[in-house]
């Protein structure tokens, strides 16, 4: 199969998937208990029955569910995700404003987890019974079993109270001036703890995975071939073995993108990171249906895009898939 055909097919699949996601999300939210009109009215300071009816009419909540669904789908496909009840602003603008920080957080955490995780895994595989290996195993088990919010709070305690080195909230310091470069540095500085918290769970898994797959590969025939032609040990590990050992890591990292985004909701809440996660948290509390739907929709888009990218990356790193189609 050629590359273009493959991409075209995947894009079609992605489109159908997005439609299904839209419908499912919509129905799920409407099954959930609670009346948004009450909440909107509550924001405005109490309401009579007439006012509630009026609100329902304004937001189209008086129509049957399937009509609402139809309206929602048509608008969504045109890029209109509706109006937020709570923020009284277009959902698209809200989501677009918050997407950047979330993507920054998730991408940093993922890259950190993949790079550091693989490196630790390689180190551990060098002496499978050594100290580094034992340390990686212990840290992995802790990192993997500890809930994300707990890790986050522990890091907050450690770095904000015991050793006050890193900021524990927000994305940048609004009181700080300076040019573009200063702002970037400030953002990165604020990014350290949230990204660490989110990344650590995955780092642990990738370290274990890399260690296991390195150990398997180091015993394989082609590693013996590499040694037999005089390749130095550093290159045997870092080139011949690692290129093969990262294949499962790429697969798993792609599959886990969705769970990383949901992890981001928790991390953003703990660290007041102004991303989609905090927005989701606030709009769920406010029963702000259009916003929740918009966020769900956008995160599905992210996951679908991530899977597509994983597919392409996998083709790059594994020639057997490239030609096998």
């Amino acid at each position, binding site marked *: 199969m050629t590359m273009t055909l493959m991409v075209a097919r995947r894009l079609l699949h992605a489109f159908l998937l997005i439609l299904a996601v839209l419908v499912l999300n919509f129905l799920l939210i409407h099954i959930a208990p609670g009346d948004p009109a009450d909440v909107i009215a509550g924001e405005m300071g109490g309401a009579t029955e007439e006012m509630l009816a009026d609100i329902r009419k304004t937001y189209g909540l008086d129509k049957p569910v399937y009509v609402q669904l139809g309206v929602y789908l048509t608008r969504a496909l045109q890029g209109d995700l509706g109006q937020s009840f709570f923020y009284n602003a277009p959902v698209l603008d809200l989501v677009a404003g918050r997407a950047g920080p979330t993507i920054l957080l998730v991408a940093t955490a993922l890259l950190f987890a993949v790079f550091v995780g693989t490196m630790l895994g390689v180190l551990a595989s060098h002496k499978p019974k050594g100290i580094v290996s034992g340390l990686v195993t212990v840290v992995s088990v802790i990192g993997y079993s500890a809930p994300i919010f707990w890790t986050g709070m522990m890091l907050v305690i450690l770095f904000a109270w015991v050793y006050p080195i890193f900021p524990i909230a927000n994305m940048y310091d609004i009181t700080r001036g300076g040019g573009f470069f200063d702002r970037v540095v400030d953002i990165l500085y604020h990014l350290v703890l949230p990204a660490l918290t989110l990344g650590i769970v995955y780092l642990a898994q990738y370290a274990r995975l890399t260690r296991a797959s390195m150990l398997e590969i180091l015993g394989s025939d082609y590693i013996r071939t590499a040694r037999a*032609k005089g390749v130095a040990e550093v290159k045997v590990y870092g080139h011949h073995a690692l290129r093969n050992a990262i294949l499962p890591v790429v697969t798993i990292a792609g599959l886990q993108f969705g769970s990383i985004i949901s992890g981001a909701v928790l991390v953003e809440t703990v660290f007041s990171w102004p991303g989609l996660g905090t927005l989701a948290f606030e709009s769920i509390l406010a029963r702000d249906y259009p916003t929740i739907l918009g966020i769900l929709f956008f995160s599905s888009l992210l996951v679908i895009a991530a899977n597509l990218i994983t597919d392409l990356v996998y083709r790059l790193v594994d020639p057997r898939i490239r030609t096998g189609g």
Partner: protein
Amino acid sequence: MAAILSIKDLVVDFKTRAGNARVLNEISLELESGEILGIVGESGCGKSMTALSIMGLVPSPPGKITNGSISLDGEDLVQASTARMRQVRGGIISMIFQEPMTSLNPVFRVGDQIAECVLLHEDISKADAWARAVEMLTKVGIPEPEIRARAYPHELSGGMRQRVMIAMALSCRPRILIADEPTTALDVTVQAQIFDLLNDLQRETGTAIIMITHDMGAIAELADRVAVMYAGHIIESGKTEDILTNPQHPYTRGLIACVPHLEENPTEDRPYLSEIKGVVPSLTELGKGCAFAPRCPYKTPICEEERPHIEAVDKTHSVACYNVKYVVAV
């Protein structure tokens, strides 16, 4: 001719849960430049371990060379530094393996894998190394070498992959090539092609070859001299024709008798395929006597008391057996 490689009293031990396994027991071998030396024996007799010892690739732990020397033109490889061994491997001594299907790295182009070997051992540009890779592929008889060099291992058949391995092994014009059962995993017709190829290349380049195999036919066809191994010992060695036509050790005789023949009426005077009764002893449970004694039809009390040393029966032929005269007379 002078020996370029000479192994003396080499001992390799493996620590196992069942105790110490002496996988190579005081073996001595000489390889003369330009010759093909065959090493035969059953699985686990130490053939491959001999090869790995020469390459300095004995897996350690659990393995360890505990005694002896491997001298390459007078330089002891057992004592050589890691850096020196890297120069030797692939540059002076190279090796091809039993499993062509899995011996090439699946994520790199075969041309790059050959070129890497050249780049490691010669001061040469990347483009020249690639050109050498293509040239080597031509030499080992791969059609369309420019295109094949860009292929990944999975795009080639087993025979093709073994040719690539041979191309890689010979890319730096080594003085010694160790072929560890190079055809075991291949079809019979492909086996013949690979043997022919090795034979031709050997004649052309003068590379000395150590051919490890349990295929007596291949030995008869290719080898100048043969060493027979059993349970970590060399029990007989000599010129190929002497070993094949006049085997002295009971094990060698048994081994040769086991080779099936194509005959018109194979069951006429030999109703079954021959076999050597019994099994190879566990290397952790070798007694003080001859390792073959438990299976030997000619054994005498001394065989279980003391291990026989390998001794010359004539100028080129040596055997480790107390009862040679009696065995040959039968």
